């Protein structure tokens, strides 16, 4: 869980349904960031401007002030996660290392975690109870790291089979044991990351009851279909997300599909082939609704109907205010004809959306994944937008978030 609910997180000025905070003037190629809300506010953010450092910004008034710079990595930082309860940050990078940062006497001190991987780390996530974290990497395995008290260091265990390519995204189940992983071998899988040293045996879940470490409980594209030619989805799985209860798993894939699977009902994977460009990130905002965003630069809503087991498109969530149609002078008409072979102004969609480049991350700010009231998107244009669900619902007709 990334967030606690914060009553004083207000938006400063601007449009009434979203606001753009430009946190970094350089373009953030991979907008890795995470949000941390604190009682009482200040709100703090850790971001990496596509280099070896992590910058921590604190919100004071209407401004974002940089408070710390964390420099330890030798390679680009590919994943950051902030554990709100224990106040620790974990970062992983292209230098095949991960560091756990703890705040001591006002500065962040790093602790190296030996991941035993021989390729870059790609993504990292704290577990819900923050006693372990998972790192996905290009070495085709997931490292589950936990703290060993006796030796006072972080130890890691690997989940290898049957992953065949880079792990692109991770998400923990609320029971702290199950982990969903989306990978470049076109599959989304659920593994058990049960570490007996730090937790007791978990109870049975709809995904399975026997959960030894490393056991694969679910695989998209057919259960254990033999051979490399199994008919799977055609794209890398960019993002995975468990619902609040953990019974549903959603993932987006590079072939412009979004899919939802329910635990226990094997074979009922419901995908929706969308008409948009591929979606890069997805999150549940209620048990039945998903918000996803990607290369089209605007978030979209999908609604999953559990009874009918169907996934439908709910609507675009970024309808720009229509600018008044200006009359086109004759001269402009000829200019347009000359430039674009058509007399009308081309509809440049991108200028009208909040984000001017692909949206790479989306996360829930308030309300949790079952009753989200605010969520936040960051994009490759270096900007971060905060969206208020209630205002969206009232602004857009026919938009229903169930």
């Amino acid at each position, binding site marked *: 869980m990334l967030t606690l609910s914060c009553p004083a997180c207000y938006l400063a000025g601007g449009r009434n349904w979203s606001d753009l905070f430009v946190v970094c003037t350089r373009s953030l190629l991979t907008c890795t960031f995470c949000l941390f809300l604190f009682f009482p506010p200040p709100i703090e953010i850790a971001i990496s401007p596509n280099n070896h450092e992590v910058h921590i910004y604190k919100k004071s008034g209407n401004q974002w002030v940089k408070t710390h710079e964390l420099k330890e990595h030798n390679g680009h930082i590919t994943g950051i996660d902030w554990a709100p309860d224990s106040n620790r940050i974990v970062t992983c990078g292209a230098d095949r290392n991960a560091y756990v940062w703890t705040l001591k006497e006002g500065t962040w001190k790093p602790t190296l975690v030996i991941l035993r991987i021989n390729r870059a780390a790609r993504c990292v996530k704290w577990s819900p109870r923050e006693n372990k974290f998972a790192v996905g990497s290009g070495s085709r395995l997931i490292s589950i790291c936990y703290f060993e008290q006796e030796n006072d260091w972080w130890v890691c265990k690997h989940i290898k089979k049957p992953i065949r390519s880079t792990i692109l995204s991770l998400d923990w189940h609320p029971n702290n044991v199950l982990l969903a992983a989306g990978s470049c071998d076109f599959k989304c899988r659920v593994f058990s990351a049960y570490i007996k040293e730090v937790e007791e045996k978990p109870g049975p879940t709809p995904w399975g009851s026997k959960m030894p470490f490393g056991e694969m409980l679910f695989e998209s594209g057919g259960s254990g279909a033999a051979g490399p030619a199994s008919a799977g989805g055609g794209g890398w799985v960019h993002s995975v997300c468990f619902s609040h209860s953990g019974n549903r798993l959603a993932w987006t894939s590079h072939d412009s599909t979004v899919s939802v699977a329910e635990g226990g009902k094997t074979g009922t994977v419901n995908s929706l*082939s969308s008409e948009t460009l591929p979606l890069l990130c997805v999150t549940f905002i209620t048990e039945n609704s998903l918000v996803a965003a990607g290369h089209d630069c605007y978030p979209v809503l999908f609604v999953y109907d559990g009874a009918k087991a169907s996934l439908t498109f709910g609507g675009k969530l970024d309808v720009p205010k229509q600018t008044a149609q200006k009359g086109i002078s004759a001269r402009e008409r000829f200019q347009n004809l000359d430039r674009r072979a058509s007399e009308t102004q081309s509809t440049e969609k991108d200028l009208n959306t909040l984000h001017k480049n692909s949206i790479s991350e989306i996360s829930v700010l308030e309300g949790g994944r079952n009753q989200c009231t605010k969520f936040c998107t960051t994009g490759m244009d270096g900007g971060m937008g905060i969206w208020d669900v209630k205002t969206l619902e009232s602004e857009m007709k026919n938009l229903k978030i169930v």
Partner: protein
Amino acid sequence: MVINTQSCDGLMLGLCDIFGACSRYCDTGGGLLLCCWFLNPPCTGNLMEALQAVLKNPPINTKNQNVKDRAEGLVLKVLSAFKSSDIEKGVQSLDKNGVDLLMKYIYKGFERPSENSSAVLLQWHEKALAAGGVGSIVRVLTARKTV
């Protein structure tokens, strides 16, 4: 009942599925079985059915290049036989998977252009894009098994 499509010309189109009847045109991967019958000079109703039938059972799983080529040739013939004004109706009659499959054939057809094929395919492309969105093109690009 199978007749070699090379003996067909002009308005005759081959469409049929009969499973497992002829080993010359299909293999265990499942291919499109071809047979011919005479078609009356283009009557829209028949063309719609022709479109549906030719998009059924695409030779995705087979490794036999021959089958794929014949299937592609057939689809091209059907697409060319449509009148420009009927193309939109043709696309509307397809479901989502059908539109994706049509896009795959359109791009396959672009790969090997003949005299008039590209013009016809571009008209189909415009209508299919309106129906399927850019997502259908992305699915052509990311598909691991092609027609």
